[in-house]
Each structure stands twice: as C-alpha cells, then as structure tokens.
C-alpha cells in the first residue's frame, strides 16, 4: 500500500546541508527577547517588571484566555526592558528583554520528576498548559486546547506528525533520531489525555534513521504503528497526513476532531514529555540554520528569545550573496526584515537564501497549464485567485473556497509563470473577513433601526 494524498508538488529537499548533523547548543546570548505572543490565540500578559531578577523556568507572562499559554524565562537573569521588538511572523510585538546572568539557576531548584501514569487526565492537561506548550509544527495552536475536545466528539486516533515535508529543515529529523523515546512517551501521554487507543507515527521515506529510531521506540506501545510516507510536499499538512494514513478526507473548514483524530507534531510530543514528566516548560527548541548563504549550516539548540544575529554568528555568519532571510521553511516560512528578530516557540528553521535560490523570473500570463490544480492538496483552482483580487470579487473568491486554502504554496511553486497565487489568497482572506464584518455590522444596524422604529 502506498500512503499518499491528492495533489502536492515534488519539491527538491535541500536537506543535505544539515541532515544527520548533531544538535549543537548555542552559547548563552548576551540578551534574550522573549515575545509575549507566541501562539495562535490571545497573547499572554507579562507578570514581571523591569529590574526583576528572574530564574530559569519562572513564569514571566501568564495566559489571558483559554486559547493562550504561559511563557517562561529561558534562563536566569534580569529583566532589562519590556518593549516593542520585531516579531518573526507578526511584524512587531511586545517582548520581555532579559539579560542572562549565566548561572542558569532553576526556579524552585531542580524540576520535579513525575510518573504520568499515576496522573489524572486533568493533571496532565494542567501540566501541559503550565508548560506553555504550543504546536511546534508551525501553527502554534495551544496544545492543551487541542487535547480538550468537546464531550460529544470523542477522539479515537492520534497521529504523530514526523513528516517534516518543508525543504531545508531537519530539526524534527534531528530530534527524531535522538529523542525517539521521549516522543513515544509524549504520545502515550497524549493518548491518556484523550482516552484514545489507536496511534500512528507518520514519517516521510527520506528519513530512514528517524523511521528506524521511532520504530524501535514505539515497540513498547500497543496499537501504535510507524507509517512510512511517500516524500511529497505538503505531506505534513494535517489533512494530507490524515488522508495518507487513515484514507479519510477532512473537508476544508473542519477540525480533525470531527473525524475523531488529533494530529500532533513529533517535537511537540517530546516537549510534552519534558513538561509532564520532568516539569520543564517550553523554553528552548532546535532550529535548523541552513541555506546556501550561511557559512556553517547547523542544527542548533537555542533558547526562545535568541536573535537571528546570534544564531547566524554561531553558524559562521552569512555569505555576501545573502538575499533573503526566512523564518521557517522555504514554502511557508516568513521573510525576515531584521537580524534582531528573536526566535519564538514555533521557529523550526532559519534560512539564509542567496539571490540564486530565490531568483524569480518576471511574472507571466497564466497559461492555464493546470499545474496549480494538480498541485493543490485541497482540490481548489488556485489559478483563479489572482483574478479575484484584480476584479475585487470577494464573494466569488469565497464561493471558490479561498478560505479553505492552507497557503502551503504548492501551486505557486509549480507555476511556470510565477503567478503570485499565495499572496493573492492572503489578500482575499483579509478582504473576505473585512467584507463579512461590514455585512454583519450593516445587518445589526438595520435590525437596530427596525427595533427603534
């Protein structure tokens, strides 16, 4: 049986620069810039003030809503400022600036060790939430929310996502090779929290060592299967993953829970083990620093809040033909405008791309070649989206399911005319939301008017 999904694009992997390289730890930076908004949902609220001495793992910002997570001090030191700072995906945001003291003293001494098997479901969820966990595949959805399905939608199946289909990135791969045990333990914790029994670990076939490591580690977990997936972008997209492993298609606009499924990234699972069993909150992560414009590509373990500048310097600096800096992978990552931008929990990669890597010939007319339709994993007609923007036809775009687009970039990657498809979708989504809000407001006004009369 071949595990596959509809559409997708055959994208060159570019993983060779850091594939199989050990994870190196970054020396303590001189400053850390910890953003208070690192998750999908509401930002957190700082609970420290400028001048405070803080310790490693100490809560420095608390959640403000259910879909929000706490943020912890990545190291011990002093809060020197709380100020606006560049954010890797949101432009700008408030960051707590920490000057490390280099002592790495943990809050409350050594973190406590616990057996998750003796814990209740609520205790597990509380520890996950208190650990500040978010989905580390890139979406940064708070983990405790994902593990709290409504009572009427039981979850039977958990899929650990180890596809890492984004080209260039190898951070998940590096962790799968070294932390397979913790990932399986994390999976056990997730299963327990959800009351689910069936589980799969999906890994693309271009990572044989990760497959071997996880197959070995997963032996002890009953009802768990490691599934080798065909390498094809975007295999790691939630829907593509579910389709490939379970053969079921989740339509746009629905959550995997509707199918009784929860998908979690493998690195998130390892961090769940850290949080639940060891009491270590999410304060560091592995970042793949790579691309043809960085001198020594590496997989680096860094504290949240470390700037790109510190990371790049550790990797031998950039070459003179650096043209674009991307946080994340080349297909969905965000182009960076500053070296002072710090990593957030979701930053799995930093790409230094040269002009040659990103060189795009001028935009041409749509040839109607159909490559974008063939590549779209959602079964949309991407070629039409730039036209909807040009004609400002928001309703038409909505009917064409522009809102279902996951912005994976397969269409634009495949386009021989370099049409700006994904950018058009972003414009459309914003315009549709604004038009809908306007329509709603107008409706309310009419209602109020009728009521007053």
């Amino acid at each position: 049986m071949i595990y596959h999904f509809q559409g997708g694009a055959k994208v060159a992997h570019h993983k060779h620069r850091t594939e199989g390289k050990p994870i190196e730890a970054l020396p303590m930076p001189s400053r850390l810039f910890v953003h208070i908004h690192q998750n999908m949902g509401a930002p957190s609220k700082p609970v420290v003030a400028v001048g405070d001495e803080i310790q490693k793992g100490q809560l420095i910002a608390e959640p403000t809503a259910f879909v929000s997570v706490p943020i912890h001090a990545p190291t011990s030191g002093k809060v020197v400022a709380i100020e606006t700072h560049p954010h890797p995906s949101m432009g700008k945001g408030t960051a707590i600036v920490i000057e490390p003291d280099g002592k790495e003293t943990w809050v409350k001494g050594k973190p406590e060790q616990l057996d998750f098997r003796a814990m209740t479901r609520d205790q597990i969820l509380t520890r996950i939430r208190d650990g500040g966990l978010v989905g580390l595949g890139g979406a940064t959805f708070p983990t405790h929310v994902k593990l709290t399905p409504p009572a009427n939608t039981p979850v039977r199946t958990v899929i650990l996502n180890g596809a890492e289909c984004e080209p260039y990135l190898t951070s998940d791969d590096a962790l799968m090779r070294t932390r397979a045990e913790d990932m399986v333990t994390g999976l056990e914790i997730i299963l327990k929290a959800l009351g689910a029994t069936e589980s799969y670990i999906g890994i693309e076939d271009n990572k044989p060592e990760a497959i071997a490591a996880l197959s070995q580690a997963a032996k002890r977990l009953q009802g768990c299967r490691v599934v080798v997936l065909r390498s094809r972008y975007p295999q790691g997209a939630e829907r593509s993953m579910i389709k490939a492993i379970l053969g079921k298609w989740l339509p746009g606009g629905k959550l995997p829970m509707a199918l009784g499924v929860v998908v979690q990234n493998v690195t998130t699972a390892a961090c769940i083990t850290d949080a639940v069993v060891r009491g270590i909150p999410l304060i560091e992560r592995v970042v793949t620093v790579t691309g043809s414009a960085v001198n020594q590509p590496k997989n680096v373990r860094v504290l949240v809040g470390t700037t790109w500048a510190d990371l790049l310097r550790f990797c031998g600096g950039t070459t003179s033909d650096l043209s674009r800096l991307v946080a994340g992978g080349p297909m969905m990552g965000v182009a960076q405008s500053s070296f002072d931008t710090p990593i957030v929990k979701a930053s799995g990669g930093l790409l230094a791309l040269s002009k040659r890597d990103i060189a795009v010939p001028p935009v041409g007319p749509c040839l109607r070649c159909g490559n974008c339709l063939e590549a779209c994993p959602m079964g949309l007609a991407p070629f039409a989206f730039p036209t909807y923007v040009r004609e400002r036809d928001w309703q038409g775009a909505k009917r064409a399911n522009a809102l279902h687009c996951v912005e994976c970039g397969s269409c634009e990657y495949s386009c021989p005319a370099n049409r700006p498809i994904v950018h058009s979708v972003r414009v459309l989504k914003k315009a549709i939301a604004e038009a809908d809000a306007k329509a709603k407001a107008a409706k309310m006004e009419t209602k109020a008017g009728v009521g007053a009369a």
Partner: protein
Amino acid sequence: MADKNPTTAANERLLAPLLSVASSPHIRTRETIPRIMWTVNATLIPVAVWAVYIFGWRALLQIVVSGLAAVITELVIQKQRGVARTWHDGSAFLTGLLLAFCIPVGLPLWMTALGSVFSVAVAKHAFGGLGQNIFNPAHAGRAFLLASFPVQMTTWTKMASLAPSAVDGVTTATPLGILKEATKLGHDGMSEVIATFGSRQAMLESLFLGNVNGCIGEVSALLIILGGVFLIYKRYIFWQGPVFYLTTVALLGWVFGHKGLFTGDPLFQLLSGGLVLGAFYMLTDMVTSPITRRGQIVFAVGGGLLVFLIRRYAGYPEGVCYSILLMNCATPMIDRIFVAQPPRSDLSQTEGGQA
C-alpha cells in the same frame, strides 16, 4: 531602540546589503514559460527533419518562413502595445512551426507568411496575447488560409524529395482526399486508397512511418507520438486529451464504416491526415483547452466526434483543424461545468449526523 541593542552592531558583520522580503513560497520550480515552449518546439525537431527528408528543402523553407513571420509579428505587436516583450519565449515560434506543419509543402511562401501573421496578430494578440486567446493560433491560421486560398491549400505537389524512392513534381491526392472523392462518386473509397499503396499493410506502414503525401507535419505518426509521449512524461500535457480524442475517432470510424456497421478501418482513420499531430500538439494547447483533466476528456471526445462527422459527412476530406477550433469555443463552458473538485469528504460516514 537601535543604539540600546548590542546585536545591531554585529549585523554589519553579517554582510547583508539588503534583505529582500516577499510572500511565501520562497523557492520555485525551474519550469518557466520559455522552457516549456522551447521544449515543445524541440520535440517537433524529429518531425521537421523527417518532413525535410520526405518533401525536400522546401519544407524547411516553409518552416523558417512561418516561424520567422510569427516571431517578427509578435515582436512588432508587443512593441506597439507597449507590453512585455516575450517574442523570444518560444510560443510565437511554436505557433509558426505548427502552422507550417499543417500546410501543403508547395504553398506559395507569401501565403505561408500571411497565415503566420494572421495566427499571431489576430488569433493571439487581438484577444490579448499569450494566455488570453480563445482559438489555437496555428489552427486559426490554417483555417484562414484554407478559406482564403482553397486551391493552393489543397494542392499536394511532391517537391524535390531527398528520399530516393519519391517521384518529383507530381501532383497527387492525400489518402483522405482519395477516400472522400471516391466515396462521393459512389465508389468503394477504402479499396481505392489501398490500391494506391498496394496492400492494406503497406498503407498502414506508410502512414505510420511517414511516407505519404499531405501537410508538412503529417508525415510520420510515429515521430509525433514519440514527441507527444515525451510531453506527457514531462507533464506538459495530460494524457487524457490525445487518448480520448484518438479513441473516439478510431471507434466511430470503425463502427460507422462506409460499407455498413463495423466495417470501417480504425487504424486508417487514426494514422491519416493531421489527426495525430492535432491530438498531441493542438488539442492539448494549454491556453485553449479545458484546465481540468475531466474537462479535457469531454473536450477530446467532442473533438473526436467532430472529426468523424466532418470526415464522414462534410465536404472536407479532413476535419482535425475545425474540430479543434470548434471545441476551443466550448472550452470556457466546459471549464465552468468541470471545475476543480476537493476530495470527497469522509465526515458523514464516520461522524453520522454531526458533520
């Protein structure tokens, strides 16, 4: 803020002149419009070489005149319109090349040039240029020439062939032409066609390998199929178009033969005329054919039906050109009906009413 920040000073050493910022994705396929167009042109080189071998140097002259006229027309129009100059992207040359492939080798050169100018100026640029045209430019040019110069467009003179066995300078008819004329007179057309070759086997061999009279690019089905298979392998065209088009023509030609039901010769129908060239190179034109595979099936079956009707019942011996031009009109409608489809939802069967 910058002066407070100790990392800023270090940035100078990170050697970035300026960071370019753009929406994702940040990498692209290496396929470009020129690459696709020139590849399609390249797959036609074997056909062109064989045509020159069969028809002589005049075939090459026709190709050069048609190609150059197309490229020059595109350059002049793009200059006049003030749009991006993409005359060298291979698409105009492809139009010229394909037009040269569907005219008789003896056509006066000025007519060839005129047809090529019509293809690019009227069929392509009057509609807005590449990607906007409704009709296949090469076939529109051929239809224009056929309407304007019906005699010259149907005069099949064997020119100074480079092939040793060929007879020079004799006016002959095409197999489809013989079939049409004989059938009109109430004769057994198929027998007359076969008689000109000696046997059915010899006829099919000649048709397949390319030793028959007709248009420049109709000489060898084999070479055209090889080029077409390469295009399918490169994913420049979908296999559905040619397969359904050819199958429809063969099936209908076989079932509704001249001597009653199931008496037709499907292989003769397939290999004669411009059918194979049309199936792989004109029917599959990205711009003028439906964008989905399902749409292309409908398009191809419709085209095949029209070829059969024209060949069997209409005044012309051959119907490939008109079948494709007529189906081109239907492309927007087909695209409207056969839109992209998301995979079928699996929610209901697992979720009951909750989905």
